[in-house]
């Protein structure tokens, strides 16, 4: 219980007045002669007690009326600013703006952010003078307090949407931090938001509640500028069949379609720009957009020649929110990486070759990673030039000559990938465990382990295994038994185990070497089934699709192909690896709808790194001239969940902010009311005045009956 004007409570002292009046101005009774007193005597005692009771009741009613009136005038409230005083004192307020592109949603020709800013400006004008306002945007980091309200209003006018936004709970944590430092006793947080789920990740709930606990006196107002029933066409995240593919390959694109509103037909268009062509429309499909229906737009386009292809798909026509109408993409068409497979017998390489360079692919099928494979015998390794090669795979290598190991080590250190698939020829182990081979191998070979086991991945974060992640529990590893493998020491130093057998021993190990990487598998990867002493049935079990994925992902990882993304979410730093023979020191960065800007290449990183990706669209990176130079690109999109208009339910907000911890307002009246309730609390004035009236009425009735003048 708090009071707006606590001093008026002193008025309650006036209850002394009726007491004094009662004592010194008792009403004189009418004096009447009456002979039949004998009938009065008998009931007199009971009547006297009743009379005294009524006197007391009357006195109490009068005192209560005065006390209640004094209390009502002191404007008591529940949940107010406390005895710190009035509802008009200066406030420390934080205005938080959701600046996600979703706030550009147009309703009655007003963008949501504009509506939010208008309300914020009005609200700032209502704040008591000497209040401090911090304007925080979801886009940028912390902002300082404005020196005065006029400066705050300027800041509010400058608020704009941004593709890169932080979740609002994070911004609220900043606001709490700022308000904690503020001197003003009354603290208020205003969040201008459309209450879409994208800005309020559920995972932040516990943290947000803990943050708000730190400042229990702060009032939280959610100013909801969202639209209850939005009308919108939206594209989900763009899915590409591959980010890198070979010339003449077919790129398949698909994106989910989201519709809010009524069913409507509307086309989706595909635009592509090739290395030697301007942006042109390459496809258009008309879809019947239905709300709450799982639909997707699908395109396929043939990319004829090497180079960087960029483009976008977009929803044609006008829409309430433009942010989710376009999705950009970049793919590189390049020659497949050269993979050199060394084997004792070229026939041993047949399964691996088939996995990474399939010959008879059905029409329309997407091969994913495709390599340019050359199979040689181990003897040919000695004089081989690796300059054009991306990956060297050793299938069941015998102990090689030291210079060969040396050259392979050099190759890896310069950025090449070496795959060593150990098998029955790796004897004697002393030679394999010699210092030179151990430069590449992740550990010493101990013994050949004979046990009927199988591969048993327990984590899927590594790129080699990432493709298994969506169906991790469904991979029938047991159908592809491993009978024999080399037991290696647990890796020491930089080497790590990517994959183990069910026995717990390492199956696939990675050892970084210079700028390259060496993967060692402790059992053969291409062991023919017809051998009596076969070590495993990985490639030869029934429908060995896990083998195909594992083999191609392993080699792709070694080739560093397809691993570096070309399509980024806004705000992520883009990293484009440079070819090993790159000599350029500068590059030209062309951001969407901008002129090219010259930038320096950080040669130590061997990659072009672009951190400022806060503009959506296709970026182009060029270096070393138009003919033989570098021509790379990447695309920046909004993550799909930042543009979904699904709104939070009250239960979600309760879970996130705590029940009764916040108020929601949608317009000026509601803001006015909620802020008043928040600042002053729920006023008890009307109820108290009713009580005063009731007390006065009761007093009147009692007094009238009581003091009705005798005739």
């Amino acid at each position, binding site marked *: 219980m708090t009071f707006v004007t606590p001093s008026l409570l002193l008025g309650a002292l006036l209850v002394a007045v009726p007491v004094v009046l009662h004592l010194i101005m008792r009403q004189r009774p009418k004096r009447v002669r009456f002979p039949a*007193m004998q009938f009065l005597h008998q009931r007199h005692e009971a009547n006297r007690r009743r009379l005294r009771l009524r006197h007391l009741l009357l006195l109490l009613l009068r005192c209560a009326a005065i006390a209640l009136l004094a209390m009502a005038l002191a404007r008591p409230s529940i949940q107010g600013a406390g005895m710190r005083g009035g509802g008009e004192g200066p406030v420390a307020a934080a205005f938080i703006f959701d600046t996600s592109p979703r706030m550009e949603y147009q309703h009655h020709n007003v963008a949501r952010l504009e509506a939010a800013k208008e309300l914020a400006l009005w609200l700032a004008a209502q704040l008591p003078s000497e209040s401090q306002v911090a304007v925080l945007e979801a886009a940028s980091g912390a902002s300082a307090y404005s020196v005065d309200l006029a400066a705050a209003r300027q800041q509010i006018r400058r608020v704009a949407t941004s593709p890169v936004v932080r979740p609002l709970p994070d911004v609220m944590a900043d606001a709490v931090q700022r308000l904690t430092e503020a001197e003003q006793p009354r603290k208020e947080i205003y969040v201008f938001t459309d209450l879409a789920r994208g800005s309020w990740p559920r995972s932040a709930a516990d943290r947000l509640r803990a943050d708000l606990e730190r400042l229990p006196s702060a009032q939280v107002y959610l100013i909801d500028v969202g639209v209850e029933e939005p009308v919108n066409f939206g594209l989900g995240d763009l899915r590409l069949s591959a980010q890198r593919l070979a010339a003449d390959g077919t790129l398949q694109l698909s994106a989910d379609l989201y519709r809010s509103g009524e069913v409507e037909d509307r086309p989706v268009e595909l635009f592509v720009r090739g290395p030697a062509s301007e942006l042109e429309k390459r496809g258009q499909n008309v879809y019947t957009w239905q709300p709450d229906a799982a639909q997707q737009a699908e395109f396929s386009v043939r990319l004829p020649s090497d180079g960087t292809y960029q483009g976008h798909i977009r929803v044609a026509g006008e829409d309430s929110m433009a942010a989710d109408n376009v999705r950009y993409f970049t793919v590189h068409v390049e020659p497949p990486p050269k993979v050199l497979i060394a084997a004792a017998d070229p026939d041993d390489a047949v399964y691996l070759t088939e996995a990474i360079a399939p010959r008879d692919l059905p029409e329309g099928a997407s091969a994913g990673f495709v390599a340019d494979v050359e199979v040689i015998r181990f003897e040919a390794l000695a004089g081989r030039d690796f300059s054009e090669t991306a990956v060297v795979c050793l299938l069941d290598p015998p102990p090689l000559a030291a210079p060969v190991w040396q050259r392979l080590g050099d190759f890896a250190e310069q950025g090449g990938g070496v795959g060593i698939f150990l098998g029955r020829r790796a004897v004697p182990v002393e030679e394999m465990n010699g210092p030179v081979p151990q430069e590449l191998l992740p550990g010493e070979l101990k013994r050949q382990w004979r046990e009927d086991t199988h591969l048993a991945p327990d984590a899927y974060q590594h790129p080699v295994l990432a493709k298994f992640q969506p169906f991790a529990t469904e991979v029938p590893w047991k159908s592809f038994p491993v009978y024999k493998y080399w037991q290696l020491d647990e890796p020491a130093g930089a080497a790590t185990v990517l994959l183990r057998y069910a026995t717990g021993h390492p199956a696939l190990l990675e050892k970084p070497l210079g700028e390259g990487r060496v993967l060692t598998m402790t059992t053969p990867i291409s062991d023919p089934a017809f051998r009596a002493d076969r070590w495993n049935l990985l490639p030869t079990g029934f429908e060995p699709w896990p083998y195909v994925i594992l083999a191609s992902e392993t080699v792709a990882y070694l080739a560093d192909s397809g691993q570096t993304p070309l399509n980024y979410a806004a705000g992520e730093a883009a990293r484009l690896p440079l070819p090993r023979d790159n000599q350029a020191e500068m590059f030209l960065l062309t951001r969407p709808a901008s002129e090219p800007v010259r930038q320096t290449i950080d040669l130590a990183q061997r990659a072009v790194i672009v951190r400022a990706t806060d503009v959506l669209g296709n970026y182009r990176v060029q270096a070393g001239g138009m003919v033989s130079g570098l021509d790379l690109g990447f695309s920046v999109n909004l993550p799909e969940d930042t543009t979904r208009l699904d709104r939070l339910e009250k239960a979600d907000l309760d879970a996130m902010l705590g029940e009764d911890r916040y108020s929601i307002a949608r317009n000026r009246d509601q803001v006015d009311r909620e802020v008043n309730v928040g600042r002053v609390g729920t006023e008890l004035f009307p109820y108290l005045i009713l009580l005063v009236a009731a007390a006065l009425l009761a007093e009147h009735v009692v007094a009238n*009956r009581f003091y009705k003048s005798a005739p």
Partner: protein
Amino acid sequence: MDLSESMGYTHRQELTKFEYGICLAAALCYLMIHQNDPVGLITFDQKVRSSIAPKSKRRQIGTILSALSKLKPTGTTDIATSLIQIAAMLKHRSLLMVFSDLLTDPEPVIASLRRLRHSGHDVILFHILDEAEVKFPFEGLVEFEEPETAATLQVDANNFRVDYLRELEAFCENYRRDCLQSGIDYVRLDTSMQFDRALTEYLVSRKARY
């Protein structure tokens, strides 16, 4: 005729109980003299104060009216003692009409009335109350003062009315019942009643009985 001071009380009527009683007595006297019945008058308060012997001559009307007109209600009353005294005074079987407000302890009064009746006298008890005593028309806080004893009592009249009327009713009912048992006519009157109509009503009802 009861001479107590309480008989001289009226709250807001033209006639006090005493005057009302006198009118009533005078009228009855007139009627009875006209049918040649001898009529006398005895007044009392603490004891018998005066008496006029019963006669049936026409002149007796003047004598009684003159005596009645000179009477003034003063002081306290003792009805029971007075009635016993009267009983001793009466030599023949008589019709005794008592005019009183009976505002005293009822037991001795009833006992003395029974004694009169036992002596062979016919008794009619005219119980005269003021309209205010019957209706208790007071409102609010009132301090009552008894005329005879000057005792006072402060009460909330509104609250008291029901209790008072209940007490009064019980009191009157007590008299009525005892009188009925003893063969005494009990006539309850209040000063707001037209006394001629009251009288006529009574006489008609008495005529019906005999």
